[in-house]
């Protein structure tokens, strides 16, 4: 008998789903309820309105080290308020995440930190006695790296937007 593929892809792999949804109260609960029921771990989620017709784009990043991950796309598509769903994981795409970081740093190391921040393509938003606030936007894998690097300077408070993604090329949805 033919069972769904049980072998997870090598290493942890994230699947990026891009959804066009109706902007109703409760849509997020329906989407997250479906994901919870199938036991997927959500790594990132972002939602924002895209037009005046009451539609939103939802970008969802879930753990793909799971045999039933293909099924989640179909099950989400089954939700009445999900207009369209696309798996961007293997599609050429642009993906970005915004991170805001507040780093506690002794005055003596502030100059090093600002240099590191600039070096990584971050932007300093505010600089005070013993702290720096910076922003960084990039691919979400890169955000992870930058956060880890800046952590070396001191305690970091982080706010991340969750991923947003869009496919490459002329095709639009």
């Amino acid at each position: 008998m033919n069972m769904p593929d049980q072998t997870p892809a090598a290493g942890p792999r994230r699947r990026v789903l891009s959804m066009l949804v109706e902007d109703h109260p409760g849509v997020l609960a329906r989407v997250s309820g479906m994901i919870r029921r199938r036991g997927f771990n959500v790594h990132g989620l972002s939602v924002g309105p895209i037009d005046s017709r009451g539609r939103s784009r939802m970008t969802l990043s879930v753990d793909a080290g799971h045999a039933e991950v293909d099924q989640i796309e179909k099950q989400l598509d089954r939700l009445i308020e999900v207009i369209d769903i696309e798996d961007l994981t293997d599609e050429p795409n642009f993906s970005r995440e915004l991170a805001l970081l507040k780093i506690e740093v002794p005055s003596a190391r502030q100059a090093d930190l600002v240099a590191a921040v600039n070096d990584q393509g971050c932007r300093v938003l505010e600089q005070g006695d013993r702290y720096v606030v910076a922003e960084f936007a990039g691919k979400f894998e890169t955000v992870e790296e930058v956060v880890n690097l800046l952590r070396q300077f001191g305690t970091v408070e982080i706010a991340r937007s969750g991923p947003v993604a869009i496919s490459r090329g002329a095709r639009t949805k």
Partner: protein
Amino acid sequence: MTGAEILLEALQREGVDVIFGYPGGANLPIYQALPKFPGIRHILVRHEQGGAHMADGFARASGRPGVVMATSGPGALNLVTGLATAFMDSVPMVAITGQVDSMMVGRDAFQEADVIGCTQSVTKHSYLITRVEQIPEAVKEAFHIATSGRPGPVLIDICKDAQKAQGDPVWPQDVSLPGYRPNKEPDLSQIEMAARALSSAERPVILAGHGVILSGAQDELLELAERAAVPVGTTLLGIGAFPVRHPLALHMTGFMGTGWNLKAVQDADLLMMVGMRVDDRVTAKLDEWAPKAKTFIHIDIDASEIGKNVRPHLEVVADAKTALQALAPHLGAPPASRDDWLTQIDRWREEHPLRYAQSNGHLQPQDLMIEMYRRSNDEAIVVADVGLNQIWAALWWNYARPGLFINSGGAGTMGFALPAAIGAKIARPEKPVWVVAGEGGFVMTAQELSVAVKHQLDINIVILNNFTLGMVRQFQDDFYGGIRSEIDLTEMPDFVKLADAYGLVGLRIESADQIPAAFDLAERTPGPVLLDCRIDPDANVYPIVPLGKGLNDFWELPDEYA
């Protein structure tokens, strides 16, 4: 018009003429408006769960959506089991629940519950209505969603202030649901390949599920099976999709399926699954299921069912009827070896017949089923509960067509049978209706007897009473080393007296020779009749696949009991 009147008018526009319901604080405005709508018959239930099962039985018997109504909080929460039952079995239903005033939602008001949240995973969709203007569109969409594509229950939760508010209804002509596209045309290249594979297979088997019945594809299935010379088995909920006494019939498949069905599935080189979920009760141990099948074809209207448990080689996302109609013209002549396959199946049918313990002096449940079926003229509806009674009713009636066997298959809800039979009888008053239930499940919703009495519904209730939780007892005996734990139901009411207390006729059957006279009386008596049948306490279901094993390992009735 008030919101409550708009709601009832909207229901009437959807063709609703029966509501099963229970009033309370948060739906009082609807109940105040109800007398103005004489075209809607309201059935006052005794518990909201019963109301949900009645709406479910109504829908299964008639093909029209069933409607149930409850108040907020506990009233609405009592619907949850009934919604889950309908959701698992793809039954079209609309539930209308009262909700506290919109300004009070979320503040833990009296009898407030987050009904949308609590029912989200057991409904196809749901609406929270806070303003009167939302009502016409929500009702139209709810009925469209409940009845189209893969059917299912939809819940409308209406705040009390929206029920009371005045409004000028604007009746929508169409629904606008950009994310809902239920009618999918089958992929013709997959259809052609499926037809070729089915025609040329040496040992093909078709398995038919509830989807065949829901789409009314039984004629297409019969024609296809006969033309292509392919044997057909059904799931529990697919019973009736293919006539049981047809020479190509394999009867029920799965964990408690017939021996010749399981032999055929395990030896098949091709399996075509139509309108079914391929769940664990069908496959038993999944990696031992259909080991010789080189080709799996899966037809289902719900794309998310395809590949969920078994990844097919060919998949067709479409309504069963559309798909089978598209398949038929592409069928070729079966290979000469097909005769050998059909002969082999006939041999299995002879070698592994359904058997039961006929001569141990006890009343056997199968004797009751055989006599009920004999009297049914292929017209009567039987509504079975859950447990051994369910499988006896499934296997021992030779169902000739869809709609005669009603059962909670996916959810396996004990207590389903009596209320569902009430709903079925209200939907199809011209049909004889039988209930088959164990005493355990029966008492879970027995209060609905009052509804059957009040409306003098001509229902014959057969309680297969063994004073034990029979299926659990069999599992403990067969698969848990015979350690019997918490299955004793000796302390049960005297069902004949119970019938008397509720105001219906009750009779006891203790031996096979009492069956004909008792059934004669039941059939002659107008209104409901309860038959307390004291069956063999050790009667089991066979065949059965031991828990955790594959279909190959099915057990049959031991020879010494036959």
